């Protein structure tokens, strides 16, 4: 079976691991506060999240055992699987708040749309690494990636989950721009994109989704609805001041003024209790992972590794940015979690797997094509 080369230990990026563990520890502590005092029934969220961290850790170990190159083969089976799951939730998934998103797995509810983000990263990385064009991609080369992104995008939009669908779009744009396209492609993309936007506003978006966007443009319009959530979040964060109110001493969160305080608005709790200093500390660690990830992309051994690492960083980065800007009142409430921090099994596992891939790329940075373990696998 599989034998692990000692060089992997040598090349393994312990610093990255420590950073990730530190952020995860802070996130768990924050989740404990966000769901404090513990409710009398059911497993408290932080306990569930603990188990999921362990599960995700095992997943990372599993991922590290294989060369990430294996994904070049496995990406299409995974892609087909996720499309199947997305179709399945649409047909038979558990619904909440009018949206069909989940498959109940007991410990947590699997949200295929979360996993779809990571699969898309892998798929696009695979596609762009195979097709190289120094002068940039033309319109014809873009048809396949657009279709690969469009299919899960539409399935998720249908749930409806505008936020996650848009995330897919953002991942697609980030990776495509990174891969370099011709200016004609940009122009056409821009025109088609804006047409699609206008079309969507009038025919596709549900009223509540439009309302969220309108609220952002004019928060006073809807003080008790979406605007209320954002306002309470700003009050929570702002009232933290420089030093914060102290761990477990936030009032906005514990007195329920803050909505969704252990999911989308989890960082508001941190901001309220830890203040500016604590927030900057946390964000520094968090963004250090991202920068480290980009460094991993820069040092990757091959084109696929670069795209994989870059895509994973973008996946986490954009979610984090959108979530933080929402919490701080710059964006509408779109339901994008803060990876690692927000409570939610699918998001956490997806993020941990993504980090697993990142570590994998980092760990195998010195290897050449004559992959030793792969040869051993063949034996």
């Amino acid at each position, binding site marked *: 079976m599989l034998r692990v080369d000692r060089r992997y230990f040598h090349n393994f990026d312990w610093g990255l691991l420590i950073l990730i563990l530190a952020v995860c520890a802070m996130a768990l502590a924050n989740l404990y506060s966000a769901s404090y005092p513990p409710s009398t029934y059911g497993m408290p969220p932080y306990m569930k999240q603990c188990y999921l961290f362990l599960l995700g850790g095992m997943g990372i170990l599993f991922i590290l055992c294989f060369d990430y190159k294996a994904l070049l083969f496995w990406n299409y089976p995974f892609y087909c699987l996720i499309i199947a799951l997305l179709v399945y939730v649409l047909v038979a998934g558990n619904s909440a708040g009018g949206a069909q998103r989940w498959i109940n797995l007991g410990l947590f509810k699997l949200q295929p749309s979360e996993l779809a983000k990571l699969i898309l990263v892998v798929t696009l990385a695979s596609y762009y690494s195979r097709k190289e064009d120094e002068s940039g991609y033309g319109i014809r080369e873009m048809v396949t990636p657009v279709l690969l992104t469009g299919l899960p995008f539409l399935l998720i939009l249908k749930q409806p989950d505008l936020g996650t669908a848009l995330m897919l779009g953002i991942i697609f744009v980030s990776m495509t721009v*990174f891969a*370099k396209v011709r200016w004609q492609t940009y122009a056409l993309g821009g025109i088609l994109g804006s047409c699609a936007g206008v079309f969507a506003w009038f025919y596709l978006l549900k009223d509540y989704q439009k309302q969220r966007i309108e609220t952002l443009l004019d928060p006073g319009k809807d003080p008790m609805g979406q605007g209320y959530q954002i306002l309470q979040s700003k009050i929570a964060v702002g009232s933290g001041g420089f030093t914060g109110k102290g761990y477990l001493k936030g009032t906005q969160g514990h007195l329920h003024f803050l909505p969704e305080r252990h999911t989308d608005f989890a960082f508001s709790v941190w901001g309220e209790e830890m203040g500016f200093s604590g927030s900057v500390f946390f964000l520094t660690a968090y963004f250090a992972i991202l920068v480290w990830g980009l460094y991993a992309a820069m040092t990757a051994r091959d084109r696929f590794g670069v795209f994989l690492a870059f895509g994973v960083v973008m996946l986490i980065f954009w979610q984090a940015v959108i979530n933080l800007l929402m919490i701080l009142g710059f964006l509408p409430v779109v339901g994008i979690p803060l990876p690692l921090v927000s409570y939610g099994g699918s998001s956490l596992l997806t993020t941990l797997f993504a980090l697993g891939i990142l570590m994998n790329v980092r760990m195998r940075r010195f290897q050449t094509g004559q992959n030793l373990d792969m040869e051993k696998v063949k034996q």
Partner: protein
Amino acid sequence: MKWSGYNNLEELSEVDDAGLDTLKRRIGLAGFVVICFLVLIVSRLWFLQVHRGAEYKGRADNNRVRVSEVAAPRGNILDIKGREMVTNRPSFNVVLVREDSNDVDTLIKKLATALELDISVLWDKLREADGKPRHIPIRLLEDVDWQTLAYVENHNQEFPGIRIEAIPSRVYHYQDVAAHAIGYLGEISKKELAARDPEIYSGGDLIGKMGLERLHEQDLRGEKGSSSSEVNARGFEQQLLKNIEPLPGNDIQLTLDAELQKVAEDLMAAGDKAGAVVAMEVKTGRMLVMASNPVLPLSQFVGGISHKNWNALLDNEKHPLINKTVQAMYPPASTYKMMTAMAGLATGVITPETVFYCPGYYRFAGRRYHCWKRGGHGAVDLKRAISESCDVYFYQVGLKVGVDNLAKMAGKFGLGHRSGIDMEHEKGGLTPTKAWKEKKYGKKWQEGETLSIAIGQGFNLVTPLQICLMTATIANGGTRYKPQIIEKVSDPDGHVLSQFEPIIGNQMGGEKVFLKKIQQAMEEVIHGRRGTARKVRIKGLTIAGKTGTAQVVRLKQYRHLKEEDIPYKYRDHAWFTCYAPADDPEIAVTVLVEHGLHGGSGAGPVARAMLEVYFAERIEAYAEEEKNKKK
């Protein structure tokens, strides 16, 4: 494990290094973007948490801290003997805080069903509160019984936004006794609120609307307390943060004697009489009784009087809303004759021995001015003139004294001027002078009018309090005390803040020697053989007094009618004023019965009954003595 096409994939990942390097260069740009966003987020955090941190902290506290006022118990009102007349009890109101309820309509429906209430009443209360801030509690039900209280308290989770408010409410231990003097409370009006310190008053507060409750609002109201509690987003209280106990109002002890006042009011009510009963300590100015009938139904005012009840009070021909002791004016009639006599004696136009002949009328300027006794009194001196109330005698005294001198003397007795008593809307009365008529009507004074003035008719108007004041001044030998009704104000700890002190309004000069004669004449009114108030006599007590019958109209068509047949509103007013004991006076009692016909019969018995109560011990002791003597 065998992966088909593996080698092929292997080759794919080994594309040339030049392309890889340009790709990697682009990562630097991505890193720049990432750092830019970090900077953006951190600066936003700085703006929210540091730059505007204090403001958001305030808003967070506003969210979680609910400050509610705790009404202060109003000061108690006691009578002169320390008996509690008005105190407080806790009353419980069901209130709605709209801010804490996300669906007021459903809530109201649910509450109405649960408590079996008429829902339209609740809607009305809500409509009244339109435009008020949403965190101000609206009183839906006032002074609820304990079943309702228990139900709402036990089911508070089902009615978010509904709360129980405990506020002190007035208890009237003597029901409506002294209602006009004490007054009542009501919810503060928008106008009153605008005129007052918002630090002290807020909407929904009770405020004195009439009487002492209004005049001494500042003493009685106390200081509100407050309780700050932490609430969660649904409005449920989590913990008490700060509690400031309210400071009760100051207690006011009145000079009124509740029992005596009750006797007066009951006697008037028993005879279905409208009018006033005033009793005063002659040597201090303490008011013992200030009764006005019909009494105000105070209980109707608790929690706001209904429109129907208010209109009934307005339309009542006996005018219960008017405090007849000071707010109503009547011709003094024969009670004025002591004053006329005093003016005559003081100016020297008569002596006590001067005699006038009364043939039953007095002819002046070609007109006959009748005496009430058509047959005439014959030769009349001062004593008989007062005790038998001879009009003709006083016509002539009045003529000799002149209207201006009459007014001057009237002033010394407190007639025609506000006494300055601590009551609202006190009327000054009227003692006419020549100048007054000139000014008021632009006409010269007719001497014939002086005749009417001399016997207390004509333009003359007095309040019952003024007649009592005059009686007391005669009784005490010429000192006019300012009438007062507050004995003592003390704070909740019992410290006396102010204490009754007699205030002298006027002291007569040398003319006071003549008062002795007037006093003797007044004694004769009761104890004389032909006195007009012989019915008032009490064994064991010497009383001095005077009756009066004030004409309301001088209509010929009613002259020949029997008194009982004259319509109520045209009947004469009955006066009786007296003091006792005659040799060493203690109290003066004045009774006015509106349309009560004759002083001696209409008003006298009320005064007599009051004296019997006031001097009960003395009268009993006398009866005991008499019994022993017979043995």
